[in-house]
């Protein structure tokens, strides 16, 4: 649901997000965290609001990244054009694969999307034009004509701008006729349909929108890295997106951002721990997977709705209780047909 977060909190968070990168020596982690927030915001639209599942959202990140790599390196097209095409191609791709995929439900849909990611990985790995076994190196820096971005910082601010845009679009969409249709699907498809919501078409549109976010994030990643291969989009990362979405709170606008930040920070801390001298090389992955599992289980046990909705609900309960104290329910319920409509 669209739960309003106080504007002050948002402003403070925005200032922190803008200032912090000025003091970090290396921004790779930071930019990955922001782009994860963009991806998870889209995923949360699809999973949280529409009540669907996608275990393979990395597929759309891959399409966006590949769009940029292929258009710039293979075809020599302008970088900006490539970046603009990244979300569009990702959305078109989602729409096309969604036509058969979104007829599936629940576990079948989850496995279907996972299979999609595996297929995309395999295609990238086997088709030389898409990188093959080597990958595509040397993506040029983003720029317009001769004005070219150098250094990491501009990419960070670009990513933050994209995140702001993603949040704005999500908010507008959720609070609209279309968005209500989307959220209705999660409650009851039959009731949504008889309220005039075209079920498949609506799912396809949200799927494509969330893929566009992922594709745009992937495109920026390709410029930043600047390298794309079949190994750039591991299944574990797609699982991590889901964990972020669940922990932050499916079906809440800010849940994706909160989840992405918390899980990214956790992974970063674990990386620091596992890089201590004297530990075996496998410590990192083991810690990371262990932490994913633990965090997910704890979250499902104690805050099944995720952080943001849990807090919002507590605040709402308090408000409702106050309202009840002021006006007993017997008075609140009027007879039917009391107002002539």
């Amino acid at each position: 649901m669209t739960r309003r977060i106080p504007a002050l909190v948002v402003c403070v968070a925005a200032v922190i997000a803008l200032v912090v990168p000025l003091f970090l020596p290396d921004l790779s982690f930071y930019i990955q965290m922001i782009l994860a927030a963009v991806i998870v915001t889209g995923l949360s639209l699809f999973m949280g609001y529409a009540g669907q599942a996608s275990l393979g959202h990395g597929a759309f990140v891959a399409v966006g990244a590949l769009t940029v790599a292929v258009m710039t390196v293979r075809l020599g097209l302008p970088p900006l054009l490539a970046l603009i095409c990244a979300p569009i191609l990702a959305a078109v791709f989602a729409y096309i694969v969604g036509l058969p995929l979104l007829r599936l439900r629940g576990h079948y849909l989850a496995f279907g999307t996972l299979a999609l990611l595996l297929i995309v990985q395999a295609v990238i790995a086997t088709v030389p034009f898409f990188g093959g076994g080597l990958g595509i190196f040397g993506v040029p820096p983003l720029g317009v004509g001769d004005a070219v971005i150098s250094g990491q910082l501009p990419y960070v601010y670009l990513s933050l701008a994209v995140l702001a845009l993603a949040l704005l679009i999500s908010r507008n969409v959720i609070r609209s006729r279309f968005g209500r249709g989307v959220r209705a699907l999660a409650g009851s498809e039959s009731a949504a349909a008889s309220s005039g919501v075209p079920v498949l078409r609506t799912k396809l549109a949200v799927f494509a929108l969330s893929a566009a976010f992922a594709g745009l994030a992937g495109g920026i990643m390709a410029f930043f890295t600047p390298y794309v291969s079949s190994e750039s989009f591991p299944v574990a990362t797609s699982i991590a997106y889901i964990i972020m979405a669940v922990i932050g709170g499916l079906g809440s606008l800010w849940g994706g951002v909160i989840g992405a930040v918390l899980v990214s920070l956790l992974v970063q801390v674990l990386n620091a721990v596992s890089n201590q001298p004297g530990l075996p090389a496998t410590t990192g992955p083991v810690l990371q997977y262990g932490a994913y599992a633990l965090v997910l289980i704890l979250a499902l046990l104690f805050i099944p709705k995720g952080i943001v909705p849990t807090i919002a609900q507590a605040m709402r309960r308090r408000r409702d209780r106050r309202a009840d104290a002021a006006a007993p329910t017997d008075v609140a319920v009027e007879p039917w047909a009391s107002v002539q409509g």
Partner: protein
Amino acid sequence: MLTVTSLSRAFGGVYATKDVSVTVPEGELRGVIGPNGAGKSTLFNLIGGHLRANAGSIEFGGARVDRLPVHRRARLGIAIVFQGARLFPEMSVLENVMVGANAATRAGAVAAALRLPSQRNEERGIRQRAFAALGRVGLAAWAERDAEALPLGQQRRLQVARALMGEPRLLLLDEPASGLRAAEREDLSELITELHREGMTIMLIEHDVSMVMRLADKITVLDLGEVIAEGTPAEIRRNQRVIDAYLGGEAAHADAE
């Protein structure tokens, strides 16, 4: 307005609806009664498009609709209040009702993302109408609550308000009074009467036979998936087949009133 011709639907070889033909003229309030499992809900689900017929046709407003998906029929003006409460639990009461307007409005995802002026106008209109609809069913004070938290009686009201938002020409009410207290039933009857007076075509499934007898212009009686009688309340009360199959004591009781 509605012409159902030789409609049949079977579940695993057993007919839930068998060769049913019903014609409901514009503005009529048609009662549909029959024992449990008679196929009443199945008939509504076929008309609304939630089930596909094995045979037969459905004409609405002069055009065949039996091949159309549910949302297209909703846009043509067929609204349904389901037997069980099918709400959108994650949404507020107001938002639940606003969803109902989707059948009668058009702004899409792109207009919403860009917040085009036309879209914002439409939003305002939807919001106003939703408040009016909630007022009409007596739920205005609950607008901001979670739909999940509503007691059963209020959930029914909510479904009715949601259905009205689609500006239906045919309203299908599947046991809207079950589980309601006597006073709530009275309110519901009043609302139905009022909608009927305004010219809405209504089909009403109800086990409370005296309520149907009071409200309906004509009644269709189903048993084992087939129409066994059709006529005015007075005719139905006297129909021997209906009394044998279903009414029995209830008809006598209604007569005594």
